């Protein structure tokens, strides 16, 4: 996969500012969509992500059909996930199965109950992430179909 040059720094890593912008935009877009909002659980769910290359920590907070992202460490997250920014991006772009990422050690469940990840998977954030990533330039505006495999 070839990313837009603007989306990476001189070391070929994803731009953390664009990643932040994409996450915030994806959450906003999901909350503006009836189907997306309806798939956010009522019960509170807090997933803390620790990304590397570049380093970025953020938390997805879901509760009462509301999803938001914050860039801080929560007090008592349900699950802590660790992976590189590239792996996170590939999962959200729909190019990497999160289970495959877990089995192959690309994504670690550092702490928490892995079953809570099912609730996270039920939130269709990927579709909104992919759209926003293209809008903000984290991902090329058009992706060749063959690159998806």
């Amino acid at each position, binding site marked *: 996969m070839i990313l837009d040059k603007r989306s990476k720094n001189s070391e070929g890593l994803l731009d953390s500012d664009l990643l932040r912008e994409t996450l915030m935009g994806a959450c906003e877009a999901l909350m503006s969509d009836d189907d997306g909002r309806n798939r956010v659980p009522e019960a509170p769910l807090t997933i803390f992500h620790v990304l590397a290359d570049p380093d970025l920590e953020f938390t997805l907070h879901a509760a009462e059909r509301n999803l938001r992202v914050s860039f801080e460490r929560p007090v008592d997250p349900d699950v802590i996930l660790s992976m590189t920014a590239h792996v996170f991006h590939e*999962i959200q772009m*729909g*190019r*990497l*199965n*999160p*289970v*495959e990422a*877990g*089995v*192959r*050690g690309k*994504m*670690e*469940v550092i702490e928490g109950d*892995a*079953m809570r*990840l*099912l*609730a996270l*998977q*039920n939130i*269709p954030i*990927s*579709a909104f992430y992919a759209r926003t990533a293209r809008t903000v330039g984290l991902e090329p505006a058009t992706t060749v179909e063959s690159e998806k495999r």
Partner: protein
Amino acid sequence: MRVRPRAAIRGLGHALPQRTVTNEELHELHGFNSRYIRMVFGVQERVFLGEGERFSDLAVTAGRRALENAGVLADDIDLLITSCCSSDNLLPKAGTVVQRALGLSRAQVVNINAACSGPNFGMGLAWRYIANGRCTRVLVVMGDTLSVSSSEDDIMRAAFSDAASAAVVEAVLDPEVGFMADSYGCDGTLHEAMVLRSPGSRFPMNEQRFSEEYHRTLNQPELMSDVMPLTAKWCRDCWDDCLAKAEWTSADVDFVSPHPVSLIQMRAQMEALGLGMDRTLIVTDELGHSGSGTSFIVLERAVEQGIIDAGSRVYCFTVGSGFIWGGMLMTWSPAEAFS
């Protein structure tokens, strides 16, 4: 709608291959994350075919054990139903091999391929043959050997294993025992969510030969993300439908065999039914998930351990790639219910 006359499971049996593979071995070989596998799949070790073993070896042994367990003879079987998506050969499928090996000379053979949901479709089909008066006794043989159908480092190997299991399903006259209600579902929009391409006409054999990629499980990540939470919903949908048909409440059910694909999936299904894990039995920790082979093993072990006995009310649910699913509600039959 209730199907009459009743049918019930009279005997169960299973067969496992020789080779046990631990998470640590998968880590050594392919870098698989043992901790993640334990945490998500709940699998400590699984069993794979050993040198020279074939699916039919397991299927025949499982079938023989089920006949012995039921106390019936090969000649007593009117119909053999097999479900396997990893038979010895592309054709013929496993049914005729099992029929010949077990000497089921009177039995017609029906091969189905319902992937991991084979047990429910097999039981449902057997029930209908019996209800139609065409059969009295059906041998249902299920299983898969996906370890030889996928690449060495396919992630499927983390959760899946090889096994075969079998049930003798027989007509019963007592309306209070046996299969009480079943329910099925299908969502073809998820067809591409999990695909095992080999062997298939979409990917010709001459191309498959040259690339390991063709033998790798193909997951469509976005669709698969939909499937995982949906499994619990489908389990609940069938449960509600079955309970309504049987005119039972959830409190009437003693034991549940959820789709046994992974620990978190089983927990999610039990949670969706409003039940704790104390109402089921986990075998995947030591056996992995052998596609259509696991559910009958869960039932067999539950019977052996006295968790299920005569009069127990049981719900069995399975999901297969495609995606298709089915649930069955039954009352476990005492031996005297059978002729």
